[in-house]
């Protein structure tokens, strides 16, 4: 069994980029496991837990929570971070993400080379734009985080909670929220981001 698990062919196979249908099926397994364990699939609630742990509940009743009820969120988040570590260190395909040529050409026009703008060359994040080493890089990263955190808590859910969990439960609020995701995302991608990059 151990030999089978560690066999190079098996590792090479899952180290290739996964087909979207495989990913969709795998996410369905995640949804099942979360439900079976008694929780719904979602992760942005972790921001509220962090606020609560940092003592925000003393001032704002919204952040008053029972820590014992939140341990699972912390365990899930730590697992997710660990998953990213395992994927990049043991299951990396060493090839950058194959994005469409149209997107590559468009980004080149904005001054973003592909995959060169990702210092790791993986095609995961243009860290030449979002980084800790320039004022602009820090400002853009903080702005992105603020908007995601605020929106996720105002809407009580993110891509996992609304776009997957909510839609799979046929929830109208989730559908409207996902339409909002696209209004914001399209506005940013087509109007605001090109404007930001012009500076």
């Amino acid at each position, binding site marked *: 069994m151990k030999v089978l698990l560690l066999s190079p062919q098996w590792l090479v196979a*899952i*180290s290739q980029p996964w087909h979207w249908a495989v990913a969709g*099926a795998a996410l369905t397994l995640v949804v*099942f496991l979360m439900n079976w364990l*008694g929780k719904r699939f979602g992760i942005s609630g972790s921001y509220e837990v962090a606020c609560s742990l940092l003592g925000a509940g003393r001032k704002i009743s919204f952040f008053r929570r029972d820590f014992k009820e939140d341990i699972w969120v912390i365990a899930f988040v730590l697992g997710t971070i660990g*998953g990213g570590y395992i994927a990049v260190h043991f299951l990396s395909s060493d090839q950058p993400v194959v994005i469409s040529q149209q997107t590559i050409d468009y980004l080149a026009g904005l001054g973003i080379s592909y995959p060169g703008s990702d210092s790791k060359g993986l095609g995961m994040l243009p860290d030449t734009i979002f980084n800790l080493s320039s004022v602009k890089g820090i400002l853009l990263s903080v702005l992105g985080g603020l908007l*995601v955190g605020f*929106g996720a808590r105002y809407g009580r859910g993110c891509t996992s909670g609304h776009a997957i969990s909510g839609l799979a439960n046929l929830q109208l609020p989730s559908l409207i*929220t996902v339409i909002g995701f696209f209004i914001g995302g399209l506005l940013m991608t*087509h109007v605001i981001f090109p404007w930001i990059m012009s500076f």
Partner: protein
Amino acid sequence: MKIRHIAFFVVGLFFGIVMFKSEAVSWFRIHEMFRFESFHMYGIIGTAVAFSATMLWLLKRAKFKTLDGKFLSYDVMTFNFTRHILAGTIFGLGWGLIGACPGPMYVLLGSGYSVFLIVIPSAVLGAFLYGLVRDKLPH
């Protein structure tokens, strides 16, 4: 620390690997998605929703019980169009900019993209700011 918490950690590990290997954590994939230049992200979300909806429907029909012995339930949100569309749009603006939603932020931090050391605390700050102005927003 209960076995249940270890189970959530393991599910998180799996979720993180799936998100990385399916490239759903890629800023470039998100940019490509919002430019409608690839089917990839739509394929992932579409199959995840279709499979999950079918699975949940079947589980509910079969009166499936969770480990706590409860039937599957979903606490329905009060419908408020303004709230959902506004919250979604704010989130979308951030998603379109940083190219990562909450799950991928954690995954990419684990993958060694250190900039998420400020992105994630900023998102927590965003959640805190929401808590501050919550009473003034439509719900």
